[in-house]
Every structure is written in structure tokens, then in C-alpha cells.
């Protein structure tokens, strides 16, 4: 009788143990799922874009992948002509932005710091403003250009800011979404492009790729 009671008690203890263990496993799984669900948008991957149910645009495909970067000559905010060809032999980041683009203003301080960090290795950044300009009204045009310059100054941009003449965006795939950024290597070839705000590390990796000292370059894939 005693043996039977012991066996029953043991069976109950084992059953309770299994239930408790299952509960713990289940709790951990649920917590892990909750943590994944709470991943902050700051991860800045396209998967995080906006919120659930967003009318997401189709995935971005670099229209210039491994092609020569289209040549351009534009005036900067001081009226000086700047050509992409001026930077032959350098790695060039071509960043399309606008004063009304809030995500651009997140990315620009990163670009500014990365410019400081990699300029000595041959990095050049060109910011191309896509702000609308009233070409028919000289006074309005002057004011609009001044506003771009003020915005650039406020953001602490330390690289040339060029003003698009409405002809440059087209060969770069239309540039309907800002920021859009192209990474051009020393031979003038587009080695990477991103659309929208991306992680700072991704920007830096693309800069290294353009400079020819990224991981892929080291593997001889540049």
C-alpha cells in the first residue's frame, strides 16, 4: 500500500514537473515572440517600413547596378559648377535629398561624419537637392536657393550641395523617393544604391565598397 502511494506521489510529481517545464518553455517562447514584435523601427530595415498594412512600394532594384554612373554637371549652392567627372579616381556618394524630407535629415549627419572619416581615403559626397525651384521667377528662385543653402548649413553639411536642374534625376532612375543614394567606385561604376533611410552601418559598408576596401573588395569582388 505504501509502495503504491509512493508511486502515485511520484507520478503526480513527475506530471507536475512536466507541466511546469512546458509552462516555462511556453513562457519563454511567448516572451521571445513579444520581444520580436516589439523590435523598434530604429532597426531601419525596409521590413520595418512604416507600419503594418502599409501600401509598400515594390522592392527597390538598383537601376544602375554595375553600370557607369551617368555624368552630370550642376551648380552648387554657391553657383560653382561641379561635375561628377571632376572626381575621377575617387569614390563618390551621390545622395539625392530635399529640404522637406525628414528621413534625409536623419541620414545627412551620418554622411557628414562618414565624409570626415573617409575623405582622406578618397571619399567624396555630393548632395543633390531635389527641391522644387521656380525657374520662371527670379526672386522666388533666389529665395528657394537660399533656403536650400540655409538648410544645408543648419544640417552641418560639409560636402558640396548641388541643385538639380531636373535633368539629373532621370538618368539615375527617376528618383521619386528620398533619400536615394548611389555609391560610385573609383572607376566610375555604381557599386551600390539605397532608397529611403537605411542603417548607418549599411551606408558605411557601401562607402567601403566604393572605396574598394569593403569586405567584398577584399575578396576581389569589387
Amino acid at each position: 500500500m505504501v509502495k503504491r502511494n509512493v508511486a502515485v506521489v511520484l507520478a503526480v510529481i513527475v506530471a507536475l514537473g512536466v507541466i511546469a517545464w512546458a509552462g516555462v518553455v511556453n513562457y519563454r517562447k511567448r516572451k521571445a515572440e513579444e520581444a520580436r514584435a516589439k523590435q523598434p523601427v530604429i532597426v531601419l530595415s525596409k521590413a520595418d517600413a512604416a507600419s503594418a498594412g502599409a501600401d509598400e512600394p515594390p522592392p527597390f532594384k538598383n537601376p544602375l547596378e554595375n553600370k557607369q554612373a551617368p555624368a552630370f554637371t550642376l551648380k552648387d549652392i554657391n553657383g560653382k559648377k561641379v561635375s561628377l567627372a571632376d572626381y575621377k579616381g575617387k569614390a563618390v556618394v551621390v545622395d539625392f535629398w530635399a529640404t522637406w524630407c525628414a528621413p534625409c535629415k536623419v541620414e545627412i549627419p551620418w554622411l557628414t561624419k562618414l565624409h570626415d572619416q573617409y575623405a582622406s581615403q578618397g571619399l567624396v559626397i555630393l548632395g543633390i537637392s531635389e527641391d522644387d525651384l521656380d525657374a520662371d521667377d527670379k526672386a522666388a528662385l533666389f529665395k528657394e536657393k537660399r533656403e536650400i543653402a540655409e538648410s544645408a548649413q543648419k544640417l552641418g553639411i560639409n560636402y558640396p550641395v548641388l541643385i538639380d536642374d531636373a535633368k539629373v534625376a532621370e538618368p539615375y532612375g527617376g528618383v521619386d523617393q528620398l533619400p536615394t543614394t548611389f555609391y560610385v567606385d573609383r572607376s566610375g561604376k555604381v557599386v551600390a544604391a539605397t532608397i529611403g533611410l537605411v542603417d548607418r552601418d549599411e551606408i558605411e559598408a557601401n562607402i567601403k565598397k566604393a572605396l574598394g576596401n569593403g569586405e567584398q573588395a577584399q575578396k576581389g569582388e569589387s
Partner: protein
Amino acid sequence: MGSIVRAVAILALLGANLAPTQKLPWESGEPNNEKQFVKFLYPEQVTIAANNESVVELHFTVSPGFHINSHTPREKSLIPTQLIVAEPAGLTVRTVDFPQGEDFALTSFPNEKLSVYTGEFVLRAHVKAQAGEHLIQAQLRYQACDAMSCFPPRKAPVAVGVIAK
């Protein structure tokens, strides 16, 4: 009406004597064949009292996951939402009330609050018309963004038939 920003947003006041093929002033500029992020919902037609000011509520919706600047963004570099109206003969749109924006912040800039519209929002147009049937043609000019990127300003078409009795 405390939460309503009253503003005159009538940028084009036109007679109805335009030739059929002639472009209205607000039809130039930004191309309008791109994807829209704002849609005019309703009304298609309203009936109002002739020769008295009436309020016509214009309902719009912003695509899920996107926001547009309110009529009064907090930074001058941001593009406000505006209603551009072509008034037909015999009808005037005196003012348009825009709702106040709601706060929105990018995760990377949590302290910089933007004033935006999301989801459905309503403009209240103060209309006065002579007896008869009229057609208000307008465009809502807006600039849309999601959490990661922004699109150039666009114009959503609006058309409301007005029967004034």
C-alpha cells in the same frame, strides 16, 4: 471649432470660361500620373441653400503607413497640405477649415514632432452659390512620407457637384 485651423486656401479663382483643352493653372507643374497617397472619398454631390454660406465637408484618406504634412507644419521647409480650387461661375469658396495635425516623430528623432494627417481627415469648405448646378473642381496638394522615405509633392483630384436651391 477650437481645433480647426481656418485658412484661405483658394489659390486659383477662375471663371468657367476656359476653353475645353486649356489647362488650368494648377494642372501645370507636378505631373499627376504617379501613385497617389491621398484619395478624395466623398461627397460626390451636395445640395445647399442658394445664396447662403454653407459648409461642405470634404473627406480624404491617407494610405495606410503614410502621413502627409498638415496645413500648418512646424518647420517652414516642410510642404503644407493645401486645397487648390477652381471656382465655377456663380459659386465661391470663401474659406477652407483644415483640421489640426497630429504629432508624429521619426524613431530616430523622437523629440522632433511633425504635424501630420494620417488615416481619414476632413476639410470644411465654406461655399456660397447661386441657384443652379455647379461643379467644384479642386486638387489637394500634399507631400507624403512613410517612416523611411518621402515622395515629392503630389495633387489628388477632387470633384464635387453642388446643387443650390
